[in-house]
């Protein structure tokens, strides 16, 4: 909630992309940040319970058989804050973001990579191109040779870093190593924040931006790859709303898109003072038209923030990140200080971990949507 100068505004806005804290954007003074609540969000609780209790759809039954599987417990998903996944084409590398903890101070975040060791994941390393500036949200091209990410690094390495000046960067494999990242430049990167890249098979770039001309907060954009360059980004107007939309995960054939939204009426929130929480949604491409976004049922969404969707290259898994943990309001019982500490230091302490669910959870919704559209 830092609203007086330009830089803090930008930092506040980045929190949405990072899903880092429940702090509001500018003009959202009514929405909670630490120890704040939103009167508008009171309705969210009602909506969420209606959704849970009064939607006996096929999708719900399918979703209820879904198990969210923690990825790389204690190696990738640790008591620290990890989110965002990009899996290499051969399935042998998983890129993710690791972020320092904070309640509101701008944190440090770096892109890390873990390599498969048989059935397990090996100890992560900070990616060769990261570790100095704040980087987050890696995405890989279909062939795995291009990696896109968001960063606040200066365009000119000789210039100082400008906090909150976040744009999309890309690096390319050269002789097995990542080359020096380059800014994507115009027309993808503009004056505002550009982040959360996701790539379709034909090179179309989906991303999030709070650039002027959107529908409010952050919106999803698409920039087609035409004649060796990006076309002017288009606002995905059928999906975007006055709420925040960010973190697209586009299907390779662009038949569906999973994304994160904060502040929609059907978001799941907990009891007590409401804090805005991110949830995941899906929209299907029907002959070039995006269907109304559908909220993903538990166990994909939870009352905690669920965010950062990604699709595995083999098409079998939806990866996502979640802050689901041990705490709920009200707590079922008072904990001893020892138990509180034990849980606070566990993997499920409330910071993000990386999960995955079989992609059938999405297809089931797609089938239901198809059934509704083509009776």
């Amino acid at each position, binding site marked *: 909630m830092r609203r*007086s100068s330009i830089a803090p505004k930008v930092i506040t806005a980045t929190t949405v992309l990072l899903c880092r804290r429940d702090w509001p954007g500018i003009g959202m003074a009514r929405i909670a940040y630490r120890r704040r609540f939103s009167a508008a969000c009171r309705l969210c609780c009602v909506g969420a319970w209606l959704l849970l209790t009064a939607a006996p759809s096929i999708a719900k039954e399918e979703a209820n058989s879904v198990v969210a599987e923690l990825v790389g417990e204690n190696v990738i998903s640790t008591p620290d804050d990890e989110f965002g996944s990009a899996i290499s084409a051969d399935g042998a590398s998983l890129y993710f973001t690791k972020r320092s903890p904070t309640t509101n101070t701008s944190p440090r975040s770096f892109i890390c990579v873990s390599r498969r060791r048989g059935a397990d994941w090996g100890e992560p390393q900070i990616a060769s191109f990261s570790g100095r500036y704040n980087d987050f949200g890696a995405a890989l091209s279909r062939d795995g040779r291009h990696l896109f990410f968001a960063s606040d690094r200066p365009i000119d390495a000789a210039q100082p870093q400008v906090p909150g000046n976040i744009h999309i960067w890309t690096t390319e494999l050269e002789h097995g190593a990542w080359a020096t990242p380059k800014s994507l430049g115009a027309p993808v990167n503009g004056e505002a924040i550009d982040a959360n890249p996701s790539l379709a098979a034909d090179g179309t770039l989906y991303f999030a931006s709070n650039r002027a001309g959107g529908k409010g907060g952050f919106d999803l954009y698409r920039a087609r790859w035409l004649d060796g360059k990006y076309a002017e980004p288009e606002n995905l107007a059928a999906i975007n709303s006055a709420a925040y939309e960010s973190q697209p995960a586009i299907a390779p054939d662009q038949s569906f898109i999973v994304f994160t939204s904060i502040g929609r009426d059907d978001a799941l929130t907990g009891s007590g003072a409401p804090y805005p929480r991110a949830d995941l949604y899906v929209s299907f491409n029907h002959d070039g038209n995006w269907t109304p976004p559908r909220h993903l049922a538990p166990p994909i969404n939870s009352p905690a923030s669920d965010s950062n969707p990604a699709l595995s290259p083999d098409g079998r898994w939806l990866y996502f990140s979640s802050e689901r943990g041990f705490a709920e309001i009200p707590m079922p019982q008072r904990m001893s200080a020892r138990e509180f500490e034990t849980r606070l230091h566990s993997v499920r302490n409330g910071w993000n971990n990386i999960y995955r669910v079989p992609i059938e959870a999405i297809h089931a919704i797609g089938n239901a949507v198809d059934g509704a559209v083509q009776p």
Partner: protein
Amino acid sequence: MMRLVVACLLGLLCIAPAFAADTRAIPATAPYASSQPIDTPRLFGEGTISTPDDEFGGQFNRDGSVLFFNKSVPRSQLYTIFQSRYTNGAWSTPEVSAFSGIWRDFDATLAPDGERLFFVSDRPRADGVARSSYDIWSVQRRGSGWGDPENLGAPINGDRWSAHFASAASDGSLYFTSDRPGRLGGIDVWRARRVGDAYAEPENLGSAINGPEWTNLEAIVAPDQSFLIVSAYGHADTLGDSDLYVSFQRDGVWQPLQNLGAGINSAARDYSPRLTPDGRYLMFASERGLPVDPHPSAWTYRDFTAAIRSVRNGLGNLYIVDLAVALKNARASSQP
């Protein structure tokens, strides 16, 4: 005069309390007191109180033998009030306070007479109906413990706003922060005078303290109401995130907030101010450390992970500093 006597008894180096503290029942050597000046913020209770977890809201009881403070679960999923007792020369392993642990509870503050502890909670009121906002509650001291939580009720709490962070003055006036109607900014500081055994209608402290660009999350008042320390967002002169500010009251008029400066504030979140019961120290919470410290070379995974799991990882810790030092610059520049 009394202040000087106390100061000498405490062996202070000419650092008197910054206000006329009621020093009855405050031991000459409170456990938090230092025989040497604390002229830069000092991490408090490292390893026991200030840990890699998120701590804020450090409030001593009247004689300084018990410290109340908060721990949070990431992303505001839970706030719980803990307490630690000074025993055999050390702060004991903290316990969950008897009145906390189920709902979000935070920001314990002690009335100047030590008899009442205020805190903020989203627990249901007496009607049992779930709340979606914060109220101010209090517990009354009973022997060595505390009674059951009582909701402060109207006109402090209401159905259409949150009331945050209350602090009481010696005359019973309650200063608190709230987004209640009539505010000038995001969250304002308000004062409700004590009239008999009730609070009068709260008054907005006005444009020296509150403003459209500012969000005042917390405000601790000196017992004699001579000054107010506010943790504020949105000021042009912030060193980063929220900073601590002071306003002096002169002839009944609150003077403009002044940043406590780089000697106290940091580029990280600085907030959660408290005064020790003897008026000698400012205690506050700060997230200084990993996120704002320079790092000369690229991080390695192991170094980054180790830093994330250290005390100075960017989550809140408690700091203590001489109040006179904290207010020195602002006081000097506010002289008429």
